[in-house]
């Protein structure tokens, strides 16, 4: 993503008596206190379902089906850690937790590496048909995963990738690339041209420019990409269900195997959701600091 539009005409009416609409007046008056309260409300609004899920994970299935989660305020005795204890005691769940790392970490790294390489070429190396290639690659973003299952199955079958972590990783890489390239190409293209050319003048090869100038400058975009690519792979069930075997199954598949045939299974789902949420949240906290600071500040002018 081009973080900043290259040229924006800032044309703000100079004070005097600016025509101010209702919205503008309201917005202008939004004191800090008001913003605090508003955002706090929004946060609560967002948290309520998550909180409900948390409570659901702390009650057994019959309690969950008998009454809504808010009844725990009157009946706190219903709370139990049994759901967690059961999952934590399950060896298969732990194995799958590891498997999820084996799948998500390489799939994320490969996507980030391949997409940044490709995006660099698509934004800073000129070659015939570059524009068309960009559009085609980004156009693949539209491809729904389920369409690819059968053809990819044929391919994996032929190469013996069925039931392997490699296969699952490759699939995720392929379907992560279009978005990653879309995102990074936009960002790379927004890097000031002088910065790239300065590096060229300084004697840097394309590879060095990519590694030592573009990558560090693109940290915010790469951090956001990392977060979401990791998240998507982490939460995938369909691809793993089809292409992984029992020994390489990730946590989503393992949790799914715990479900009862009938019922909302909210106790299991909620517990599983909270257990498997920890890692993505940690990744978020780890990487989000990279896009809080503006990296491009001070590069030019």
């Amino acid at each position, binding site marked *: *993503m081009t*973080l900043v539009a290259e040229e924006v005409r800032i044309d703000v009416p100079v004070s005097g008596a600016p025509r101010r609409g209702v919205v503008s007046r309201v917005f202008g008056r939004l004191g800090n206190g008001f913003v605090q309260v508003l955002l706090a409300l929004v946060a609560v609004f967002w948290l309520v379902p998550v909180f*409900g899920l948390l409570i659901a994970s702390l009650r057994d299935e019959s309690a969950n089906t008998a009454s809504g989660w808010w009844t725990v305020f009157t009946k706190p005795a219903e709370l139990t850690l049994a759901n967690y204890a059961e999952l934590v005691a399950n060896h298969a769940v732990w194995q799958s937790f590891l498997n999820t790392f084996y799948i998500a970490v390489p799939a994320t790294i490969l996507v980030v590496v391949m997409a940044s390489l490709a995006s660099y070429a698509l934004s800073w*190396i000129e070659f015939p048909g570059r524009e068309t290639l960009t559009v085609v690659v980004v156009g693949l973003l539209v*491809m729904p995963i389920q369409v690819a299952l059968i053809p990819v199955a044929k391919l994996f079958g032929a190469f013996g990738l069925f039931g392997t972590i490699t296969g699952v990783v490759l699939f995720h890489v392929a379907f992560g690339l279009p978005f990653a390239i879309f995102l990074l190409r936009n960002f790379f293209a927004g890097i000031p041209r002088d910065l790239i050319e300065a590096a060229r003048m300084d004697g840097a090869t394309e590879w060095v420019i990519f590694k030592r100038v573009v990558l560090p400058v693109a940290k915010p975009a790469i951090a956001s990409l990392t977060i979401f690519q990791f998240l998507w792979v982490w939460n995938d069930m369909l691809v793993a269900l089809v292409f992984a075997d029992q020994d390489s199954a990730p946590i989503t598949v393992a949790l799914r195997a715990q479900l009862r045939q009938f019922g909302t299974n909210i106790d299991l789902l909620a517990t599983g959701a909270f257990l498997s949420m920890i890692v993505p949240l940690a990744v978020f906290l780890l990487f989000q600091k990279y896009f809080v600071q503006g990296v491009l500040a001070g590069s030019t002018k």
Partner: protein
Amino acid sequence: MTPKKWGLSTSVDAAPGRSPRQAIPFLLPALLVLAALVLYPLVFSLIRSFFDATGDEFVGVRNYVDTFTDPRTLTAFRNNVIWVVVAPAAVTGLGLIFAVLTERIRWATAFRLVLFMPMAISLFASGIIFRLVYEEAPNQGVVNAVLVGVHDMFSPSSQYPGARPREGYTATEAGFAANKPVRAGDTVMLPLIGFNPQQVPAQALPASTPQAGDGELRGLVWLDVSAGGDAGKVDVIERGLPGIAVEAVRDGQVVARTTTGDDGRFTFPDLAVGEVTVRLPRSNFELPFRGQTWLGPGLITPVIISSWIWIMTGFAITFIAAGLSAIPRDALEAARVDGATEWQVFRRVTIPLLSPVLLVVFVTLVINVLKIFELVFVIAPGSVQSEANVLALQMWQVSFGTGGDQGAGSALAVILFLLVAPAMLFNIRRFRRERS
């Protein structure tokens, strides 16, 4: 710092900025993977869409014809349009507003984390969450629980919800009206059913038939429900129903009103000469307010969209916050110094500067919306699934339901792909503009 010798390298490189050969190592890994695992399946689907379910017989465009003549496709198409028009814009807008506002608070990271949380929950689990949030039963669904709570605060529910007379009465707008008119001196027996004997108020006394009174209309309202009891007869363990409003109606006008006592009896002491109709007003039996049917056919798509907004706002806010951090503070401050209000700064400086990010977010969301199917599948109850249908869901069902028809499914995939063409064309145009 002695000047170097002329550093002209002997390797003849392609001209600066025009180096197809240099691009190859950068592009190759990504392109190989994409070609094998995305492009090939795409081409495969395109070809496959012209074959029948077994994949052996070429059927031309029949799969497409079938798809377009299926009434479900039309609903799906309509819903997709609603989704595309409403959802991405809402999420982008919310993400933008929240991202800008979080710049003013200290707990910005915490706020972003909270909004990011739904993204960290799998779509399947999120679907279940919202299935429960919007559940109709107020003891399960939090939305209806709140609605019912608020409603009951202002208008408490009736005493005997759902109870009804056994026979001889017609349900009217105003209540249950007796079919046979009566006059003073008569006794009216009103056996009610459809109510659990265990929920009869504690003060209720056993029912017994009242004596006919002179000049008075007397009657009994009792719960005619007991194991082994006779219908229409007052059995031993059956009790009168206290507190039921009874009306005497003449020529459509209520001429008298009374309430039953603890033994279920009521009396109209001074009715003038002439016939009246006894009526039990509806308010006695009003069913409790149960909230909205959120998951019914009417509201299902908005409900699913709302849950998608809940999930995806974290996505938008993350990217927009990253974009905001790169906006030169000078531009914002210059505008403020120039006397612009906060709103003007937002409209005329922040948004234009952020427009590239907003576009990436928006386009990604549009495409995501078109691919959505798990959420619809999980949230919509089976009975309204056809109302909530979207193309991606239909494709999933057609391709992978029992006896999956990959031919018809591929046709749907191709249609879906073509639908996104406008978004892609938009992108091409933008790329062109950027270049020039």
